[in-house]
């Protein structure tokens, strides 16, 4: 049995090496190369009469740090992703709790409702939000009518950073709810009963029992939301307006418009490093708490 499982692990391992590890190495190499005259890359090895010579450079990394422009964008994207993850947690936790506590015959249906939006294409859902958020849209129409009733001026939502956060929260919410649900559903109700018997208030029950036990789910959900949100480019492109650009947009531009693969690679690597450190941190925190649970 042991041996079989080892064999079965081979295909996914090979898949990861071939389609994640290798491209990552190529990207690291590309970030030290010179860009080709018409896009692509200059060869990493120069062939001259007296043999081969390395043709690498640190220039892309120099440009990245030369002033605050790109680092500022990196920080801004980090904050956007962080806010998105926190809002998802705030909205997702009660929802996951509700589903986990509901009668078991309902749970399947409720989970289905959470996953249902995935049945339609991501871009189509964002376009739908563009219609809802536009000044002529239903949502904003109702909101502005309400505001006018209180004597407040109309607000604009589409093409603002708020629209970017709103759409990112909307898109990523299921990634928060699912791991939280898995965790909360498995918690033994007897623990809460014991806490109540020992005189804990409802708040204490939550804060001293449910919350610490759910931390692995919280970390997993936060990582699942934070990581894709950090590199997001489609949402800022569509609803971000003139202020919403994130680091993902810049990376995409390097490959699809500027034809500057080395610089795009360097930006992507810095982003990957930030994410790796955070993922490692989350895993480390989660493991610590799991032992303690």
């Amino acid at each position, binding site marked *: 049995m042991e041996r079989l499982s080892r064999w079965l692990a081979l295909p996914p391992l090979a898949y990861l090496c071939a389609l994640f590890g290798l491209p990552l190495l190529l990207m690291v190499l590309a970030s030290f190369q010179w860009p080709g005259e*018409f896009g692509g890359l200059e060869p990493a090895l120069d062939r001259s009469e007296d043999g081969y010579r390395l043709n690498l450079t640190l220039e892309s990394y120099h440009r990245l740090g030369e002033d605050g*422009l790109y680092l500022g964008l990196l920080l801004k994207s980090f904050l956007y992703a962080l806010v998105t993850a926190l809002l998802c947690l705030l909205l997702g936790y009660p929802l996951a709790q509700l589903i986990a506590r509901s009668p078991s015959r309902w749970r399947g249906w409720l989970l289905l409702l959470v996953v249902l939006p995935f049945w339609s294409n991501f871009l189509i859902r964002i*376009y739908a939000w563009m219609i809802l958020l536009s000044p002529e849209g239903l949502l904003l129409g109702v909101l502005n009518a309400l505001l006018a009733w209180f004597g407040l001026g109309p607000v604009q939502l589409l*093409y603002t950073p708020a629209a970017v956060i709103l759409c990112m929260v909307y898109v990523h919410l299921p990634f928060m709810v699912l791991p939280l649900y898995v965790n909360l559903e498995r918690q033994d109700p007897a623990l809460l009963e014991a806490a109540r018997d020992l005189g804990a208030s409802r708040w204490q029950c939550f804060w001293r029992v449910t919350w610490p036990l759910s931390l692995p789910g919280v970390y997993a959900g936060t990582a699942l939301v934070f990581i894709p949100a950090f590199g997001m480019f489609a949402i800022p492109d569509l609803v971000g*307006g*003139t202020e919403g*650009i994130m680091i993902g947009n810049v990376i995409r531009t390097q490959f699809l418009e*500027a*034809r*500057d693969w080395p610089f795009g690679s360097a930006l992507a690597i810095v982003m990957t490093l930030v994410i790796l450190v955070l993922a490692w941190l989350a895993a480390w925190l989660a493991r610590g708490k799991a032992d303690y649970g």
Partner: protein
Amino acid sequence: MRTLVLALGLLVAALPAAAQNRLHLYIWSDYIAPDVIAAFESECGCQVVQSHYADNEEMLAKLAAGAKGYDLIVPSTEVLGGMIKQNMLQPLDKSRLPNLANIEIGFLDNPADPDGRYSVPYAYTVTLIGYNTRKVEELGIDPHSWSVIFDPAVLQKIKGRVTVLDSPRELLAAALIYLGHPANSLDPAHWKEAAEVIRQAKPYWAAFNAASYMRQLAAGSIWVAHAYSSDIFQAREEVRQAGRGFDIGFALPREGALVGMDNLVIHRDAPRPDLAHQFINFVLDGRQSAQLTNLIGAGNPNRAARPYIRPDILEISAIFPDAETLRRLQVPEELPSARERRALSRWWTEVKAR
């Protein structure tokens, strides 16, 4: 079982034959009339397979990454020179293109491809201002100047109702023209001035948008758009059909504007250069060529197409410029090297982030 084997055998035998009789067209989306494709298919007894791109750079990036099998591609002039220098294209056999005579002489004089060895002009678009006629009139704004998207004094009347193209080349060129510099200037001082103009105008813009502004213009939520002429044409068709109580206007700014030509070229490794030549000659026929203009309002360099083009389109001077308008148009040039592309990319990031 035997039937299955037989069927499979037949299928395998038929595959190469079918694959041979296909023309692979790599083209901008919605850039050829479906009727033209159908007519060509019945003439050549072959099948036309289309793939689409939304951006020259997307097409180049895909080809650079090794995409193969395309016969015909439709690059804009500003990337044509690079494709020729990279040896990506094959020279045209003009003996197979008798309809080439239909192209207006002026359009054949393309500095990116002298003597048209590799390319045939297909259609062009002018980058200009599209506007909601009712709003512009109500607010007393003159849309025939780039000041309508760059001058804060004008912009304050239409705050949040303006979009500009999400394209570094187009926006830089528009700002340079507004400032009175050549659209293709590479002078860093000019670029800096342009960035400053944009920085002051940006708070009044709703978005950088190259994909959905025509719909918003047609819906009435955007009043002024820095736009491609064919998009404005389509927005106007939509508004007129729906009867929304306003019209969409074309304004070619008096300071000048960019005109972008798209060209038919054959890829060096085209599997079917013969079909590709046949296709080019087919779409150069006046009647076929006119269909694209009637459908999307593309500018048309084909003389023989004129009699078949809707008269109301021929009257739009932004699509069919008269001699006076023509003098105001500038053609985008390719950035000379990777260094300028880097500089432009940095300029763009700065414009967007600050």
